[in-house]
């Protein structure tokens, strides 16, 4: 099955390399997750759907980028999101289509001339710190021991006084929680800190 897929892809000319699209996706799309979440929350009443919608939007964007990279990733992201919401709305007959806001309504500078790079880097690190603060302490510990310290599982288990399968579990849940926390709105996390 996988082989057939690969062969099919190779045969199809003019497709972007998966690795290239991977890198593009991580660089251009993932950093916009906070924006996407905000857009979805504003336009979709059921907050528990947002993660599912986001995943579908990402998949659509990725598939589309395999054929062609959009000129303006930010605008494209919102367009795909909007189309999905409209599709889903038609399905559910809840929200009138007109109520779905455009990119402009979100008041997003399309490409701000950013502050200097070091300031941005520092902001990112603060942001990362804030995200880690939101994790349960054991998950945070495993994530740091693994991703920063690069310690092997045996040693992490020893330090934390848990067995190895627990370390695996903590890391798996920690990585998921981290990805969510990284893009959570500041307004949502105020109660925590």
């Amino acid at each position, binding site marked *: 099955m996988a082989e057939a897929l690969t062969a099919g892809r190779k045969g199809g000319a003019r497709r972007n*390399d998966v690795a290239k699209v991977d890198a593009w996706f991580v660089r251009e799309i993932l950093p916009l997750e906070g924006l996407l979440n905000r857009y979805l929350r504003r336009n979709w009443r059921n907050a528990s759907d947002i993660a599912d919608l986001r995943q579908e939007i990402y998949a659509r964007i990725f598939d589309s980028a395999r054929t062609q990279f959009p000129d303006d990733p930010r605008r494209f992201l919102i367009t795909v999101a909007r189309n999905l919401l409209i599709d889903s709305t038609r*399905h559910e007959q809840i929200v009138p289509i007109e109520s779905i806001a455009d990119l402009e309504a979100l008041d997003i500078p399309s490409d701000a001339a950013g502050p200097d790079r070091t300031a941005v880097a520092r902001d990112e*690190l603060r942001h*990362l710190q804030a995200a880690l603060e939101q994790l349960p302490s054991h998950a945070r510990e495993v994530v740091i021991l693994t*991703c920063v310290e690069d310690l092997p*599982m045996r040693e992490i288990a020893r330090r934390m006084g848990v067995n190895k399968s627990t370390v*695996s579990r903590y890391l798996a849940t920690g*990585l998921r929680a*981290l990805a969510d926390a990284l893009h959570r709105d500041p307004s949502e996390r105020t109660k925590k800190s």
Partner: protein
Amino acid sequence: MTEPDRSLAKSRDAIEARAADFLQRRYLMRWTAGDQAELDDWLDEDTAHRVAFLRLEAGAASVARLSDLGPPWFNRMLERWRLRLQAPFLAAAGFAGIVAAAYVASPYLLMPADRAFTTDVGGRAVIKFGDRSEVELNTDTAVRYRMTTAERTVWLDRGEAWFHVAHDAAHPFTVIAGNRRITDLGTEFLVRRGSKNLEVALLKGRAAVSAEGAQTAMLAPGDELFATPFATALTHKSQQELADETAWRKGFLLFHRTKLVDAIGEVNRYSKAKLVIRDPVVANMTIGGAFETDSLAGFLEAMQSVLKLNVAYSGTDIVLSRAPNEQKHTRTEKETHSR
């Protein structure tokens, strides 16, 4: 466009869980070619799998940048989180030749250095210092250095470098790689830093390798120290073996009855396109010979003409497999191995 109903709600959680499971395994366990093949298959199965994995992977990768915060800030953070990263740990080292070494969290203990230098994948560069010491950087290597009248310190943050040190008793030359500190006593040596391990080979002179809380290892010519975060092993290498290890300085990679899976690990260090082997039979083939580090084509040609392997391009990957008439056999073999 993709079909609108991917039965979103039910699958998303399962997909994320699977992605997280792959990622934790890759971090914590020995990650084999079979594991990679399993992951690749899963990623190819559905774009939803791929984006979920990329998202978690990117989050984890950003955590690695915490060490950029610098010591005071990061240490304060650790304190607040009650993380005991700096508690020395004595390895249970029972067997001969292994010296117990303390593991000390290092990245944040590094002080900012004055200058930095990096080489790209496939690159090589020589830095000559005013004291006539020299550092030669191999592919994909990052160093920072501070050369003042008071101190001579080089941080090897990544990769591999050869050092030739002009001895000066009043101003020791120190190389810091992770939590290990190599202090020269007039020498020529090679340091290679992997994601977990560190290798130091002494070619001439003497050098001391130390880690906080651990015994200091003194290296004599031909000694090679192999350090994991917990233990340090000393072996002795022949002149020939040492010459092989420094062949990259002349632009060569030398192999002697090297397993193909190890050989491509070396070759991949010099190339942005990565060689991939999915077939365990191919992984275990052995090769020997000299290959130019800047000519992937030469290596691939040898794969085709000498080992009769098939070379296929897939994205930035180059997949080595047995020739087509053996494909069928290969596939059944692979399945029995990976399940």
